């Protein structure tokens, strides 16, 4: 245990101040470092929130020994740690019984809980050890805890509590190029391996299911390669998937009759629709029923005029709506009618506990993404609500729905202040786990997400962000956010993140775990299943000859 210094001042609200020992190089004390203060009854776990140069005598600063000659070098050596010294600001996060103290503790003291007192003057401040990390963050056991990374300056696992993680909606934030999708993939691997929830991933850039290239152009494995039969890949663009040598489990087509007004509302921005056109859509749905979109598209000018007059609709709005509907109608995965619903198959997979990646292929424009994601999620949400209600009625454990986690990218498009009130995503984010559906929100503009939704996000995993508003958004509904702002502001642009929230006992700055061969080996323990899956696929493609 390396001693760093002694506690000299502070308060619970403002944080603590420790004087750094002169032997500790100040440059080794980084922002966000995890340190321990041993008090008389409790051990306190703190984050370094600031490091400050101080001097016992202001005269030093007026006449500092600045020359490179021998005398000033000597003076600097002498003064450092005596007249001039460093103060480390600490934010106490957790307290835990000091088991070496001669005190009878209650049961509650033996688990980490938020610090509600502070240690006395001159308590020892030291670096946290591996054992401390394990006491606080748990150990990666392949079930409840999943190692997501290491602290910035130590080689110790930092784990997410997966059971807590899937209890609420979560967010992965960071500006583009900071490794959000790698981090997301990492988390998904953890959740899949531990079977903590069933996952549906709306894979806008086709990078989760099968192999993708990392920033250095090196191929990395997708979820389907790692987990074999437990992950099914569906696509909206069969041609693109085949082009990449993947044979998806199915191609998803969406029937125009499944389109509802809420989809149109959500697409208002993408389609540049005026509010009156949305009202026109409501009118059409009321008058024409489920198949309103197809019927509207089929109307010629006269029929439309007749419909407008008959139903007191605005002709201009109806025309605008119809021309925008053509954009949707032209999407390759949208069909007037379907012989066989692959969407039902996809939902069936999820119900059976298989994870699904939905690739968008070349359909990576927002119109396609929002439309498909919202429509599918609405179906799923309705289904899960029904299942939950059944479970409430029967109280039979067998009826308890599997927790479903839906991963969406560009989440601010679904969850901005306007959309969040209207879309299923907004409902899911607000309802928490009541209906066993949660979101994994991946976004680069957290400030674009509705504040009410943000405040319900359980665990926030944040890579580098520069925009002040985005940083503010991350700390919406977080106490002590001011201390963490500085930590967040110093994250590297790659492979570093700030963990915060429900699934971690205290905020922690980490180096994210490497997504490489050793990681593959750690998560893909059931190789036999993968081999079986591959041979099955081989048979599918080439026949059983």
């Amino acid at each position, binding site marked *: 245990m390396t001693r760093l210094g002694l506690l000299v001042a502070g308060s619970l609200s403002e944080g603590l101040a420790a004087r750094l020992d*002169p032997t500790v190089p100040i440059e080794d004390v980084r922002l966000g470092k995890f340190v321990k203060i041993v008090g008389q009854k409790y051990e306190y776990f703190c984050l370094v929130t600031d490091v400050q140069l101080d001097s*016992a*005598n202001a*005269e*030093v600063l007026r*006449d500092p*020994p600045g020359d490179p000659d*021998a*005398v000033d*070098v*000597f*003076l600097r*050596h*002498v*003064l450092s*740690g*005596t*007249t001039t010294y460093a103060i480390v600001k600490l934010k106490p996060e957790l307290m835990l019984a000091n088991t070496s103290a001669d005190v009878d503790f209650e049961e509650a003291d033996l688990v980490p809980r938020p610090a509600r007192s502070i240690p006395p003057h001159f308590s020892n401040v030291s670096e946290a050890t591996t054992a401390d990390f394990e006491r606080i963050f748990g150990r990666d056991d392949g079930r409840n805890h999943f190692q997501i990374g290491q602290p910035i300056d130590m080689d110790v696992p930092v784990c997410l509590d997966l059971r807590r993680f899937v209890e609420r909606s979560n967010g992965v934030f960071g500006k583009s190029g900071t490794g959000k999708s790698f981090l997301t993939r990492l988390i998904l691997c953890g959740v899949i391996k531990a079977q903590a929830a069933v996952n549906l991933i709306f894979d806008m850039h086709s990078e989760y299911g099968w192999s993708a290239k990392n920033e250095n152009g090196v191929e990395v494995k997708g979820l389907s390669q790692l987990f074999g039969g437990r992950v099914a890949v569906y696509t909206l663009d069969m041609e693109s998937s085949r082009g990449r040598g993947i044979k998806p489990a199915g191609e998803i087509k969406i029937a125009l009759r499944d389109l509802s007004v809420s989809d149109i509302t959500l697409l208002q921005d993408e389609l540049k629709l005026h509010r009156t056109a949305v009202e026109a859509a409501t009118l059409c749905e009321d008058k024409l029923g489920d198949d309103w979109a197809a019927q509207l598209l089929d109307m010629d000018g006269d029929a439309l005029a007749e419909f407008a007059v008959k139903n007191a609709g605005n002709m201009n709005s109806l025309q605008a709506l119809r021309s925008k509907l053509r954009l949707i109608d032209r999407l390759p995965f949208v069909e007037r009618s379907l012989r066989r619903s692959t969407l039902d198959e996809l939902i069936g997979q999820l119900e059976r506990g298989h994870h699904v990646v939905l690739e968008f292929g070349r359909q990576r424009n927002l119109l396609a993404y929002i439309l498909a994601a919202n429509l599918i999620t609405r179906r799923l949400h309705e289904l899960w609500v029904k299942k939950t209600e059944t479970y409430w009625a029967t109280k039979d454990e067998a009826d308890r729905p599997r927790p479903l986690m839906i991963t969406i990218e560009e989440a601010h498009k679904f969850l901005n202040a306007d959309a969040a009130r209207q879309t299923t995503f907004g409902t899911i984010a607000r309802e928490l786990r009541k209906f066993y559906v949660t979101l994994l929100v991946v976004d680069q503009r957290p400030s674009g997400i509705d504040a009410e939704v943000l405040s319900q996000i359980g665990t926030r995993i944040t890579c580098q962000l520069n925009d002040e508003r985005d940083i503010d958004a991350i700390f919406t509904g977080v106490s002590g956010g001011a201390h963490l702002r500085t930590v967040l502001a110093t994250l590297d642009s790659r492979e570093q993140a700030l963990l915060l929230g429900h699934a971690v006992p205290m905020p922690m700055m980490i180096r994210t775990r490497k997504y490489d061969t050793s990681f593959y080996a750690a998560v893909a323990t059931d190789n036999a299943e993968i081999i079986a899956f591959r041979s099955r696929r081989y048979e599918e493609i080439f026949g059983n000859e």
Partner: protein
Amino acid sequence: MSALNGVHTDQPAQDGEVIEASTTEFLAQAQQLDGAPPFGSFVQVATDDGLTILGVVAHVQTSGIDPGARAIMRGHDDVRDDLIYQENPDLPLVLRTTYRALVVGFTEGGSIYQFLPPRPARLHYSVTQCSAAAVKTFTDTGLDYLGALLAGSEVPTDELLAANIRVTASMRGEPQAFLQHAGKELAQLLHTDYGRLTAILKRCVLAQGTYA
């Protein structure tokens, strides 16, 4: 040149004898004229009851033995400096060198204490210069004694501190480490007086010359 008049300062310091003693300091007469231990060095007086008092030479003076009789100029023509002593062999008998040492601690029963002893040194007991080993042992126990030097009255305190640190550093054989250690101790003692601190520290290094 005979060792009797002891004018060469590079000759080994001779033992002296306590001629005045108090709790905080003692005055010793050097056995040889100009034979006082170096300014700032450690000296010790052992008593019969196992108490050894340590002091630091804080002031050295050479004058006539008779307080009423002041030395007068003896040089003439070409007779100067050492030739004066050769021409006046009585000089070592009428002149004397005395030195004042501030008490900085004592040893008793094998333990070292860096505070004032229960009894002062006994008159007419021998004063000897501390060996390098004794200096090392004493300074290894701590540097609290620098505070006693700093509190000395009627002595050039700042010069005394610098001289003691220089002498001790060179005697201990690891000058840089000791300089830093002592410097930090001084910085604590003089935390309110940065100007004085740097003035003393500069004197410690300039003499060492090779601090880097």
